[in-house]
């Protein structure tokens, strides 16, 4: 790779240079090559030693007969040091919050405190079995109880379930509550209204809950068009699924009118809590008319994103929806002990086996305890300050399609750069060379060529200034040498992977037949 190409004034990409230059916060260094684990396998190598069997050996053929497995094919045979090196090398190919700012809008990539990981592994909690007697699980249940109380207080709602495993699963649960509520009144209703600025999970959720999706166009400010909403809400409307602050990072200032319009027709207001990091300690959805909402513990409450999960998507609701919550719900017995209540005749049923992603409850509660009321408020204020600081520092170079005040994220468009043939995806790839994870690209869909930037509270002024400097530098590159940006990234192990071929001829597993993988037949 040619480090000179990192400079805007550099010669062509292929120009070799021996020097290693510094670019803002990064310089390049070698990373290790590493094949697939199957390619390192050799018969007889092993990384495990089982204790001697203290019961009589069994003859599997006698016990299992025709169910006996012949062999385990290409499962790897490697030693422990190879495993450590393999996964450590792979890890170095990832970008992560621990390495720097990860301003992926809508995803709230904040610091994941290490004490959370520590307490989640305390033996009595980590080894608790969901079927152990309740009398021997009171510690686990008290964690659930305290987390529920905290989340109810933070959202201003009346009741909650922690069972959903992620945000989209929470949406599913929330819309099932809506459906059960309407059914209990004689008519499930037919449609769910989803603004065009919504996350893709919202319409997908409404559809799998058996609802017809009605799209709602945003107004010129990127907000809900209340007059249009009033026009389309009718007795067939089950709910509006609203993200607030919206996906352009703007608070729906007419939120009370929106709730009134819905409630007047017997419809409910569902809030996608993806952007709750803008509100904790400053405003409560339960106070502004929301009937049901989900939270993402892996966004707002700092549980690690882990490369795409696990998440946790608790659903909080008003008292009118409480009878329909998934079974079981936590209850307190007369003697003060906690118990799971399965006797819930109006419940929508279970949405997941056991009680949800319990390990995430531990982490989220640890986060709340580490913050307290003052810390939670300061966190929200810093998250909003950081987004506004970025906005103020970049709005002279990047087009701001909606001038409304920003909350926790700011959404620019690539309109000015597109005139030079550079799109948001190109800018995203180029920011990688500067040592940052890209912002969210091309979302929300109401902004053409969106750059959706959510810094979270976890960024220092120093890190924000480096990001701003990088974005300003890229804007300059777009003017002076757009090709440099269009072919980025220049510093990564691989660049511009062929996604079209990957989708046309999918290779989704390794095959032992050749050195490299073969397409699935």
């Amino acid at each position: 790779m040619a480090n000179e190409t990192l400079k805007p004034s550099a010669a062509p990409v292929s120009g070799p240079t021996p020097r290693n230059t510094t670019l803002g916060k990064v310089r390049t260094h070698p990373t290790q090559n590493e094949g697939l684990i199957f390619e390192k396998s050799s018969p007889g190598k092993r990384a495990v030693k089982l204790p001697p069997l203290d019961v009589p050996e069994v003859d599997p053929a006698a016990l299992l007969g025709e169910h006996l497995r012949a062999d385990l094919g290409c499962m790897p045979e490697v030693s422990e040091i190879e495993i450590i090196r393999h996964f450590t090398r792979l890890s170095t190919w990832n970008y992560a919050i621990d390495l720097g700012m990860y301003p992926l809008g809508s995803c709230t990539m904040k610091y994941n405190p290490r004490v959370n990981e520590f307490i989640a592994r305390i033996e009595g909690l980590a080894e608790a079995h969901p079927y152990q007697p309740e009398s021997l699980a009171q510690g686990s249940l008290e964690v659930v109880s305290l987390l529920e109380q905290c989340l109810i207080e933070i959202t201003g709602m009346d009741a909650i379930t922690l069972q959903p495993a992620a945000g989209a699963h929470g949406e599913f649960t929330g819309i099932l509550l809506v459906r059960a509520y309407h059914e209990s009144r004689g008519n499930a209703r037919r449609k769910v209204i989803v603004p065009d600025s919504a996350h893709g999970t919202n319409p997908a959720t409404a559809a799998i809950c058996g609802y017809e999706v009605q799209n709602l166009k945003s107004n010129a400010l990127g907000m809900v068009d209340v007059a249009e909403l009033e026009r389309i809400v009718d007795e067939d409307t089950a709910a509006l699924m609203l993200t607030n602050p919206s996906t352009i990072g703007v608070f729906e200032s007419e939120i009370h009118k929106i709730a009134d319009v819905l409630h007047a027709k017997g419809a409910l207001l569902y809030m996608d809590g993806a952007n709750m990091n803008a509100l904790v300690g400053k405003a409560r959805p339960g106070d502004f008319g929301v009937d049901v909402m989900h939270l993402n513990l892996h966004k707002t409450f700092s549980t690690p994103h882990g490369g795409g999960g696990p998440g946790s998507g608790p659903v909080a609701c008003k008292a009118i929806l409480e009878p329909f919550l998934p079974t079981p719900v936590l209850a307190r017995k007369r003697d003060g002990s906690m118990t799971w209540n399965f006797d819930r005749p109006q419940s929508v049923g279970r949405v997941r086996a056991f009680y949800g992603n319990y390990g995430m409850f531990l982490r989220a509660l640890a986060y709340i305890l580490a913050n307290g009321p003052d810390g939670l408020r300061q966190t929200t204020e810093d998250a909003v300050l950081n987004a506004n600081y970025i906005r103020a520092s970049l709005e002279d170079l990047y087009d701001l399609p909606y001038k409304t005040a920003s909350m926790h994220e700011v959404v620019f468009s690539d309109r000015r750069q597109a005139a030079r043939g550079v799109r948001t995806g190109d800018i995203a790839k180029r920011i990688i060379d500067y040592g940052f994870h890209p912002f969210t690209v091309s979302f929300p869909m109401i902004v053409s060529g969106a750059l959706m930037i959510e810094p979270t509270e976890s960024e220092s002024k120093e890190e924000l200034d480096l990001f701003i400097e990088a974005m300003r530098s890229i804007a300059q590159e777009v003017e002076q040498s757009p090709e440099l940006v269009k072919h980025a990234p220049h510093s990564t192990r691989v660049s511009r992977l062929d996604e079209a071929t990957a989708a046309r001829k999918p290779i989704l597993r390794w095959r032992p037949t050749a050195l490299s993988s073969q397409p699935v037949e």
Partner: protein
Amino acid sequence: MRYLPKSPAERRAMLERVGVASADELFHVIPEEYRLTRDLAVPRQLGESEIIDHFRQAAAKNAVGYTSFLGAGCYRHYRPVVIDSLVQRGEFLTSYTPYQAEITQGTLQAIFEFQTMICELTGMDVANASMYDGSTGAAEAIMMATRITGRTHSVVASTVHPEYREVMSTYAQHQGLPSSTVGYDAKSGRVNLDLLDASITSDTACVLVQSPNFFGILEDIPAIAAIAHAKGALLIVSIAEAISLGVVRPPVEADIVSMEAQSFGVAISYGGPYCGVIATKEKFIRQMPGRLAGETRDADGNRGFVLTLATREQHIRREKATSNICTNQALVALMATIFLTVYGKEGLRELALHNLAKADFAAATLASQPGARLLFAGSPRFNDFVLATDDAPSAVNARLLEQKIIGGLDLTRWYPELGHATLWCATELNTRTQIEAAASSLAAAPVEA
């Protein structure tokens, strides 16, 4: 606040750049009546040592120092130390969904390895990057089968985990997808094949069975597949105890396998987070939910990996997507991948054989006690087994608890027809001493003075 990296002076400088006097001013877009002007009623800010104390105290109120024979969908297996060393590397722990392939090759290659291992273990062609868990995976598998066949009904064996069945029922009922349950043979504890055959109609999209089933017994997958396929229905096999695949023949006759991978190095953690996964035949790939990592090349010809076939997914297809799933269980899938790498081809088989031996010994030892007998004794099984006792399960378990032993799961709630029955599990972690102690407590009928 120790997680916030700004000094008061830095905040002031930033507020100045933004052009506001205070951070609170930034919230003036929220109508005044909705602004919270008080502290949240949550516990005060704690120091790190206080946080650890808080959770240690909670842990002390749980069963600590007890021997457990619980399985039933959550299995106690040894977790090699390297799993937590590796998954706690910040580059895995604190990254997100690998949409930007250039800087997420580590996660993408690990997912590709996971997919490969799941395919090898299940005998399927393709596996996704994970689902939430075994129960939601099974529900999604049914929805997938309805899309493939254009039929709406599902037939589910009553030997499938009862909580999985509840979840499937929640998913199906609200989409108007009818489902029926097929009972089991009272002697074998396996799905009743005659009843199964009779329940499948031309509207049946799929048959869903679990193997090993909830009683720990292996179902006759080839026979069930033949019955389903004869009427044009698909076969979905759910697997809750994945270690069984080390020694049990994979369900290659199935069209879809929905697996819970918790047994592969994932802490029980009171029921989650776990790792569901859906695997299937290549021809059904475009109806499969969830993320997929695929191999490709970059501009210089280097091998690399990307998320692929995204046109099935919600962020592209919105209301026409195969599922609404977005965040899955990536880090847990990584735990499973590392576990499978540590155990490997030989170790996984040895581990499965140890489980088979422990459960066989435990079943025989417990069933030899007076007033106890093994149900479905003649059927092939893995590490769960059903014990019938003269005494009620509550009485038996109370005796065991006095000896700090958590006995089998009381089945009365879900299978009252079995009478006094409990579901036990013995894994490689249960020692002979523990098994014998449980047997002697089981037998120790109250002595009348």
